[in-house]
């Protein structure tokens, strides 16, 4: 996948996992790995950015004698997903046009 396209899709992808409830870093990677190529070092800056932009809220919870960070989606995060889906509709329209022109060529 094109790097720019992937970059644009990752944030909403990460957010969409949180729609089902709060989650943590490793679970995000496990859930997203079948969908997109994502590593720990790719996820970290995304989570940080989402937190800075208040699209997710973070809390540390004790788990088996250690702390684990849990991420939850905020209303701003939901808005981001909606924006992405709206943008994607325009891209899909452009794709359709390109496809048609390409096939007619």
């Amino acid at each position, binding site marked *: 996948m094109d790097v720019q396209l992937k970059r644009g899709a990752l944030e909403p992808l990460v957010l969409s996992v949180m729609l089902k409830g709060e989650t*943590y*870093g*490793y*679970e995000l*990677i496990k859930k997203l790995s079948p969908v997109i190529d994502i*590593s*720990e*070092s790719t996820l*970290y*800056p995304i*989570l*940080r*950015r989402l*937190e*800075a932009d*208040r699209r997710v809220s973070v809390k540390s919870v004790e788990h*088996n004698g*250690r*702390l*684990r*960070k849990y991420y939850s989606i905020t209303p*701003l995060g939901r*808005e981001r997903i909606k924006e992405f889906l709206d943008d994607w509709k325009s891209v899909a329209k452009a794709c359709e046009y390109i496809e048609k022109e390409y096939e007619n060529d």
Partner: protein
Amino acid sequence: MTKKEYLKKLKKAISALDKSDSKSIIDYYGEIIDDKIESGYGEEKAVESLESVQSVAERVLEEFGSQRGRKKPSDGETRKKKTGRTVLVICLSPFIAILAICLFVLILALAVAAAAIVFGLSVGGAATFVFGIVEAFSNLPKGLTSIGFGAAASAFGVFAAVVLWAAFKRMISKYIEYRKNKREAKI
């Protein structure tokens, strides 16, 4: 490599970062390793499955380089600045409120004055026009003059009303657009 060794190396590789940023990264990788171990990986395997310390460090440093100036909202510094601004706003709020009220009253007065002039011109013009018609029966030149002035005044009044109304509508829509942009910029 053990978890401890990996994290120690990583910490050294990203030592150029702030203490809090560095701690956050070390905590994150520590948590991932622990979670991998918990899900059945051996410690060595869990560490092996991660990217090399060097490539993680390169990525992190690159990311923090591009994010310079874009601090987390929870940072102490930002919070301090925000608190300072809030205190300032609270202290100045009576003056700001008085100033805002004065400005509002001034704009309202101007609007009322403009509306009154426009209304006066239209109604006065129309009345002069009607009066001119009646007057024309007894004194034709005087009557015609009144009809002319009346028609001109009321036409000007109606024209000014239309222009003022359009300007008012434009101002409102500009203001709504400005608020919308401001809200979007905040988001």
